[in-house]
């Protein structure tokens, strides 16, 4: 045995002086040999042996049996040997915790070494040993190293805190390391700052609500200074951290932008993209007419273009992000179409992304170029890419109306190539073009029909059948064509079968005489021979329709179809805003909010873009929804509350979506509309009462109703609302989910989270107290500072039993509104003091104003009108509520459950106007006009109140109630 391994060794020395000699296969006894070598007296032999051990470890061999022997080599002056042993320790300490303890002393000693390199190395390695017992010993050396005179040691120690937090979070909090880490943000050395930020960001990810990175203008200034001087990686951490900050005003926003802009010229693409994120977010706050705004827009284009000349992987990530940027601010890249042209040897994942962006940027100005390119791509080799290119031509046609004709002729050219998958794809998109521009390009149908036989994919077949059915009257042999499909009916996919059924029924309705047999055939195939419930049901519906009322059947089947929208794949605006805040992250690559997929980030905070200052333009600029300061304090509710579900149910009952075809409107809805119409007419007084036209005469007086309202109140209207109120009220009022008001770190282990609710006319503060400290907590008490609406606890804080560690208790504290009053800023701010046996803690929270809406808030109509006129117009504030998809009835019901009462509703030119009243606990009346445009998700809200300060809060409350 021995001679063999010796021979082996000799051969290696003879061949090459490299590390590959460590890769000799593990034979029996090798471990013993290594053991002997590790214990050798010769330094050199020892080191060689450790190297061999490391090499085996690297390739995944188990050399853990050598643990004690390797650890013995640790006490050495040789830096390389020390490092190698450290490497080994990090790998195997977990499996040999007891042995690892042996190494502790050396670590502690090394942390005091005069050489900072050794100190740093020791603290760094200790943090990597993921053994609980070791971490206890780590605390003292780490504390020293965090305050070391050498910045190299400090920055290493900063990262070590993050490591330790990963192993034992509680320990890090108890030892106060987080505070030390926060102090390091103000360190004089930029690298220390960067690492502290990086460590805090990582820790913050597991504490979403803690204010670890509590940014204020001073700390921002420190970060910006460090930004210029630290390494590229540090710059990424700092920029990502800056992106979480919300500047106070546009001036601060501009000054941050100015200091971040130079990063756009960095060679590291990750720095560039992080800088783009900060700028995209903060420029949201800049007034659009500012010169600097335009300058910034111009500066953003070149770095983005440059990213596209980088390696393909970088390009891919850049393209996914550009896709977002183009949707948010198309003006940045509108002149850069050409850089997105595809090179034939781009990787497929880059090609597909480029295509997407080309379509987004396509406009009348560049459509000719784009089409020429797309046509070129359609002749390439890669099938996926070709298909997408053909599809892109269709999307261009739908997006840029002027180009539709050219697109269609391009598609026809492609169909002439007879390449099978090109033809099929072309037919699928031509169907969409027909949908968008009906009765315009039907001349091409003949060409399409020629290719009928070559279609073998379900989607293409279905599209072709749809075309034949839709234009049956213009295709002479439509019946033959459809009949030919019918032969293999059972072998078709469901998609095709459904389409075929509908198409033949259409054909029958258009040419009833010749096709009776055909339609009977398909109906029996669908209803009797198929086991697909969808198909069977559709078959039965058609059958019954045709047999009972052919005229109705015609109206249903041949009803005019709604136009398809221009851009089908736009990201929904709130998601887009959130993703813009996450540019450069995985979320931006997947176009999903981080909460949807990133594991380990428990309860990620949703981010919204800050709003622009200067409210004057809020009505005309579409991307301004939220006034400053409204956003960050109120975390959006993710889980729908019970009331929400109820609201939805009511919504379903009372009003089916108005966009559906008129023929299917159930009579109940008609009844409801009549009631409303009647009620409104009577509201208006005699002259047009009884006329079924709804409020046509109202257009002349949109806001001010006639004062002479003496007409009897429509009981129908009231009943309707009372019904809604009766069902929705007891549980229906919307309650914001609990948020953390007082993090445990700030209150010696007491964590308080809570929310406010109004239940059965009583305002309640609902609290969860959690004891995260090690000792029992008792003697709780609570007090409020004076506040705007005189809220005060109506009784003592009832914590019955002492709160033991890790226990949570839920308390409902009823509040009264007779306490001392003092105006707060913001108005709904509430400062709270909580005492326990340990200390007194202070925090402030904000309550939704809806808890102050009293149940008797319904104003008499006449009073409403008089009051509305009485309040000066200066007190009227307008807001826009975006993206609310409730119709007016559902909104009414939902608002009613929060004590917002609708007094009247009028419909003028497709716009529902709801007049609503609210009464606050202190007797202030708020009058509201809510305009709901059918089919538009944006509501207009006008608030009139003698105390205009509350308008903003009322708006927030509407926003919350309607969207949750």
């Amino acid at each position, binding site marked *: 045995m021995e001679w063999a391994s010796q021979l082996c060794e000799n051969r290696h020395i003879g061949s090459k002086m490299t590390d590959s000699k460590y890769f000799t296969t593990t034979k029996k006894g090798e471990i013993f040999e290594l053991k002997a070598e590790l214990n050798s007296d010769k330094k050199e032999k020892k080191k060689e042996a450790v190297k061999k051990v490391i090499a085996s470890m690297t390739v*995944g061999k188990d050399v853990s049996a050598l643990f004690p022997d390797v650890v013995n080599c640790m006490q050495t002056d040789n830096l390389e040997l020390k490092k190698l042993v450290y490497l080994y320790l990090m790998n195997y300490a977990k499996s040999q915790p007891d042995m690892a303890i042996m190494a502790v002393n050396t670590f502690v000693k090394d942390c005091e070494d005069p050489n900072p390199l050794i100190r740093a190395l020791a603290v760094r390695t200790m943090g990597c040993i993921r053994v609980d017992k070791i971490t206890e010993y780590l605390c003292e050396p780490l504390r020293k190293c965090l305050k070391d005179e050498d910045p*190299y040691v400090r920055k290493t120690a900063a990262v070590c805190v993050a490591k330790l937090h990963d192993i034992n979070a509680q320990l890090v909090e108890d030892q106060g390391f987080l505070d030390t880490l926060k102090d390091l943000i103000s360190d004089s050395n930029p690298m220390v700052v960067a690492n502290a930020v990086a460590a805090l960001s990582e820790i913050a990810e597991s504490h979403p609500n803690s204010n670890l990175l509590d940014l204020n203008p001073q700390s921002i200034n420190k970060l910006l200074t460090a930004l210029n001087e630290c390494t590229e990686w540090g710059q990424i951490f700092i920029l990502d951290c800056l992106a979480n900050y919300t500047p106070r005003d546009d001036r601060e926003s501009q000054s941050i932008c100015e200091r971040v802009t130079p990063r756009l010229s960095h060679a590291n693409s990750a720095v560039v993209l992080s800088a783009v994120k900060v700028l995209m977010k903060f420029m949201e706050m800049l007034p659009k007419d500012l010169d600097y705004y335009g300058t910034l827009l111009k500066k953003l284009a070149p770095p983005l273009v440059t990213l596209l000349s980088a390696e393909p992987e970088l390009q891919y990530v850049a393209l996914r992000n550009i896709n977002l940027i183009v949707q948010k601010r198309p003006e940045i890249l509108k002149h850069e179409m050409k*850089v997105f042209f595809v090179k034939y040897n781009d990787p497929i994942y880059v090609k597909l992304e480029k295509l997407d962006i080309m379509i987004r940027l396509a406009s009348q100005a560049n459509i000719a170029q784009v089409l020429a390119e797309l046509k070129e791509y359609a002749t390439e080799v890669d099938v996926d890419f070709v298909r997408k290119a053909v599809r892109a031509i269709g999307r261009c046609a739908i997006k840029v109306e002027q180009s539709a004709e050219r697109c269609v002729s391009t598609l026809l050219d492609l169909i002439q190539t007879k390449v099978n998958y090109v033809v099929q794809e072309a037919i699928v998109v031509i169907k969409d073009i027909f949908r968008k521009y009906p009765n315009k390009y039907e001349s091409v149908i003949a060409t399409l029909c020629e290719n009928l036989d070559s279609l073998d994919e379900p989607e293409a077949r279905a599209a072709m059948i749809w075309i034949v059915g839709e234009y049956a009257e213009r295709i002479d042999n439509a019946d033959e064509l459809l009949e030919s499909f019918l032969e293999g009916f059972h072998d078709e996919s469901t998609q095709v079968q459904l389409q075929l059924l509908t198409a033949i029924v259409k054909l029958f309705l258009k040419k009833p005489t010749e096709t009776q047999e055909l339609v009977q055939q398909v109906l029996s195939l669908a209803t009797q021979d198929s086991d697909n419930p969808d198909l069977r049901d559709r078959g039965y519906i058609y059958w019954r329709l045709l047999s009972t009322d052919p005229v109705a059947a015609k109206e249903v089947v041949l009803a005019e179809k709604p136009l398809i929208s221009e851009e089908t794949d736009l990201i929904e605006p709130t998601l887009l805003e959130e993703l813009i805040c996450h540019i450069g992250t995985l979320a931006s690559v997947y176009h999903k909010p981080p909460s949807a997929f990133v594991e380990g980030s428990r309860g990620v905070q949703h981010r919204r873009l800050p709003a622009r200052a200067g409210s004057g333009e809020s009505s005309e600029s579409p991307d301004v929804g939220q006034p400053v300061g409204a956003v960050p304090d109120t975390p959006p509710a993710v889980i729908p509350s019970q009331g929400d579900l109820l609201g939805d149910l009511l919504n379903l009952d009372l009003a089916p979506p108005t966009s559906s075809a008129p023929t299917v409107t159930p009579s109940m809805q008609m009844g409801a509309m009549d009631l409303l119409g009647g009620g409104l007419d009577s509201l208006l007084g005699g002259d047009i009462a009884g006329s079924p036209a709804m409020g046509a005469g109202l257009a002349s007086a949109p806001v001010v109703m006639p004062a002479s309202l003496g007409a009897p109140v429509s009981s129908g209207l009231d009943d309707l609302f009372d019904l809604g109120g009766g069902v929705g009220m007891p549980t229906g009022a919307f309650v914001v989910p609990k948020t953390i008001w007082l993090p445990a770190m700030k209150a010696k282990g007491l964590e308080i989270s809570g929310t406010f609710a109004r239940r059965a006319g009583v305002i309640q503060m609902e609290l969860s107290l959690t004891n995260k400290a090690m000792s029992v907590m008792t003697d709780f008490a609570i007090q409020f500072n004076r506040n705007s609406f005189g809220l005060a606890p109506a009784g003592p804080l009832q914590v019955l039993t002492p709160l033991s560690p890790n226990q949570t208790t839920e308390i409902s504290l009823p509040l009264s509104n007779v306490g001392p009053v003092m105006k707060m800023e913001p108005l709904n701010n509430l400062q709270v003091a909580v005492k326990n046996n340990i200390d007194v803690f202070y925090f402030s929270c904000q309550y939704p104003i809806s808890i102050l809406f009293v149940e008797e808030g319904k104003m008499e109509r006449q009073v409403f009108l008089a009051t509305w006129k009485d309040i000066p117009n200066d007190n009227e504030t307008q807001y826009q509520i975006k993206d609310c998809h409730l119709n007016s009835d559902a909104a009414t019901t939902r608002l009613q459950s929060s004590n917002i009462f609708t007094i009247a509703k009028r419909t003028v030119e497709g716009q529902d106007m709801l007049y609503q009243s609210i009464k606050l606990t202190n007797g202030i009346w708020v009058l509201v006009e809510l305009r709901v445009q059918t089919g538009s998700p944006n509501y207009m809200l006008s608030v009139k109140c003698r105390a205009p300060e509350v308008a903003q809060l009322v708006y927030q409350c509407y926003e919350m109630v309607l969207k949750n």
Partner: protein
Amino acid sequence: MIHSLFLVNSSGDIFLEKHWKSVVSRSVCDYFFEAQERASEPENVPPVIPTPHHYLINVFRHKIFFVAVIQTEVPPLFVIEFLHRVVDTFQDYFGVCSEAAIKDNVVVVYELLEEMLDNGFPLATESNILKELIKPPTILRTVVNTITGSTNVGEQLPTGQLSVVPWRRTGVKYTNNEAYFDVVEEIDAIIDKSGSTITAEIQGVIDACVKLTGMPDLTLSFMNPRLLDDVSFHPCVRFKRWEAERILSFIPPDGNFRLLSYHVSSQNLVAIPVYVKHNITFREGSSQGRFELTLGPKQTMGKAVESVLVSSQMPRGVLNVNLTPSQGTYTFDPVTKLLSWDVGKINPQKLPSLKGSMSLQTGASKPDENPTFNIQFKIQQLAISGLKVNRLDMYGEKYKPFKGIKYMTKAGKFQVRT
């Protein structure tokens, strides 16, 4: 942050793994292998692959996949840039970045990776600093180390890491002080079948090799700095000075580094130095096709176009070709259908051409796709954008350095459609 790194060779073996936090089982790579199987070419493996508990971010370089594992939200570009840095470092240390080189130097590799990341946070990625920490292996040093028992690892704290110029090591000494700058421009272009330019842009870089003693402070000025409106700088460049005066002012790192890269995209500034005349026809029903290709110089400012290489992926229907080049040699691989013609230098008096016939599969219909020609070339002593260095000055040190500037233009992704 970055959790682990796996190196995978082209036959799908994991030949190295490194974990910066807890150990992630190598079975996580199965998701990568699945993606690899789905992709037709190794280049087409998507860079970001999700798995139930991790994300895999990979780059493919030198026939090795560098697969990084991350667990939390980490900017993907950050990871990719880091992987590039790993590749560059290996190349820098071992001359080549290959599986063999990595295996030969596995301990150095491990030491390097350990220094580059700490707990997933980048630690030392500047080549200057790494080389102070871990000396690159040379045959001489290996021999010396074996005899004397000394090691690759530096004994000193890498001082550069903390100075105001972290990219430069201190105490640099040379007997010959020299600074060389290479201005290299690559043209990316797409030319359509009629010969007109669809897109053209220039990717330029200025690479430097600076071997100067002490702490030299350099300034570099250009004749026409206006060309540079889209630039990325090495961190050493003082940005304020550039913004104000359009002068590059910097304390250089020691050795080789990329001073800046720039991008010229405005079409009228991009000259196209070669043109291609082509005539490729397939007749319907015939098993023969004709092939003609001629190259010529266009806007070359009087400089010679050299090292010309034309390559093209011929349609699948082409069985073989029978061509005659007027100069150079050509090869055609009947399996991959790759045609490549090594032209050499273009002589404007006698333009190079490649003519002949192609044989097609009998009975097959004529190919749908048209081949695209990929052209490579070099032009010495010319920066095609017209960028010119005005002067280079050194402050802060007393000696007179030797200075040199070279220009070169190359084809990047230069494609001609037919």
